[in-house]
């Protein structure tokens, strides 16, 4: 296996996916197979090669600082799984974890 169980679990947690034991084992197996295949790029020499972030980049695209209409609030909240009045509602933030910027 090219990826350990611990690392698979770590990746799942980073991605906010919870996997039970058998799902974890399956994920470890699948990821290992795929990663084994991906590892072929290790053999490719990319020294001094530039990055391609976008295939046809258009530079300096921006808009002027002009206010455009926002959605009306009912449309904003219409898809909310839970709401309270004019707010989206979420259950308790147990860990006093700061909103990092």
């Amino acid at each position, binding site marked *: 296996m090219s*990826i350990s169980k611990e*690392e*698979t679990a770590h*990746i*799942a947690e*980073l*991605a*906010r*996916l*919870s*996997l039970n034991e058998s799902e974890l084992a399956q*994920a470890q197996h*699948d*990821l290992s*197979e*795929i*990663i084994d*295949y*991906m590892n*072929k*790029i*290790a053999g*490719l020499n*990319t020294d001094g*090669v*530039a*990055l*391609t*972030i*976008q*295939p*046809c*980049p*258009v530079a300096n*695209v*921006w*808009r002027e600082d002009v206010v455009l209409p926002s*959605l009306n609030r009912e*449309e*904003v909240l*219409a*898809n*909310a*799984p*839970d709401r309270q009045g004019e707010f*989206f509602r*979420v*259950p*308790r*933030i*147990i*860990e006093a974890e700061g909103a990092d910027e």
Partner: protein
Amino acid sequence: MKLCDMTIHELAALLRAGEVTSTEITESVFDRIDQVEESVGAYVTTARDQAFEQAAAADKRLLQARKRGSLSDISPLMGIPLALKDNICTRGIRTTCASKMLADFVPPYDATVARRLGDLGAVIVGKTNMDEFAMGSSTENSAFHVTRNPWDFERVPGGSSGGSAAAVAAGEAIGALGTDTGGSVRQPASFCGLVGLKPTYARVSRYGVVAFSSSLDQVGPITRDVWDCAIMLRAIAGRDERDATSSPEPVPDYCGSLKETDRDFTIGVPSEFMHSGLDSGIRELIDNAVRALEDAGARIVEVSLPHSDYAIAVYYLIATAEASSNLARMDGIRYGFRAEDAHGVQAVIRQSRSEGFGPEVKRRIMLGTHALSSKHYDEYYLKALKARTLILGDVKEVLEKCDCIISPTSPTVAFRIGEKLDDPVALYLMDVYTTIANLSGMPAVSVPCGTLKGLPVGAQLIGRAFDEGTLFRIAHLLEQACGESVKRPPLEAMKGGRDR
């Protein structure tokens, strides 16, 4: 021939002449849907009432234009029933991405491509089935149902735009839009005997198209012939102020260029693509296509894409890395599925995602998360961005001396439902010919070039950036030379359908 089996340009001519109405065409399409949809399963949602309203409005506009003699101002899409893949947001019509996650999501906005089609008077029949979040090549990854290939109900229509391809092939829409991240328009077009185009990256706005991989995704038409494809691209292409990556390149009149008779093309055949593992039947059909193009006046040269062997690995690293981030917004907080009994907000996010996503989506999110994680970033993600540069270099070099590159679209014909479900690597390898166009950003079209044991085979043409015009002309040559036999699935077989 029924109205629902005709092409956009044929129907547009009839509409202009006042020989049929959009309402009649729309009726014909919905009759076909009533007849075969239970067997095909092309749609997630049909918008019957709205479609007939749009058809009536189109009829009114056509009538006025005919009276005023201003028909030339009207788009050939006026009154034409089209289908949209269900990852293209439609205001007021739910947009699910064939995922439990978005099963009830009704966007308060239109994707730019949807708005452009609507503005031109097209009739939107409904939203088509797909692999969940466009991740797959068979449409079997839909959270709702499988879609069957109208040529053979035991087989997949391809994917991820399988619903769009099946709908057009079965006469449940005249044309459709799909999205193509690694072949998802071209491969189902090939499996269903249709023309499918992935435009140049940045040619078509991605605004409102649920992102899979932002630097690879493009919306593209799936149509019955090249001419229809040109009509649809012209309608959706062009700079959009809501998509900062969309190109300001002017949009030419593709149909006008199709009328040109110049046949002095140079076509490259990459040696890497015509060898290992290619089904001999498919190889023979591609060889035929190459010969037909040569007979039509084109010059054929052998070319090389030395880094193409890395394309699949590079593609899946980049696509999944971007996808892992693009799908992070699916957290069950502002919209979408929220797990019932999660205590605490991180648990809501974790459980909603675990229950809302299907297995392939989770697999790809994890793969992408792995590729981006601090420990592996350099060896996978960064390396892939560099390898992408090499692949782009290969393609550019070839296209300096060739007008296009020809290859098969897919290494196989449509495979059986369930046949490849549990081997992810084998499925990923199916994208061997298509991903190179996404990685390089070049436009690529799949054109039917024959059938193998009654199943359609497509040839892929990859062209120069923003030169879809030339690509269409070569595709048109190929279509005239060997596409005739592939035009329609054996519709008789469909009648009565089979139980799903």
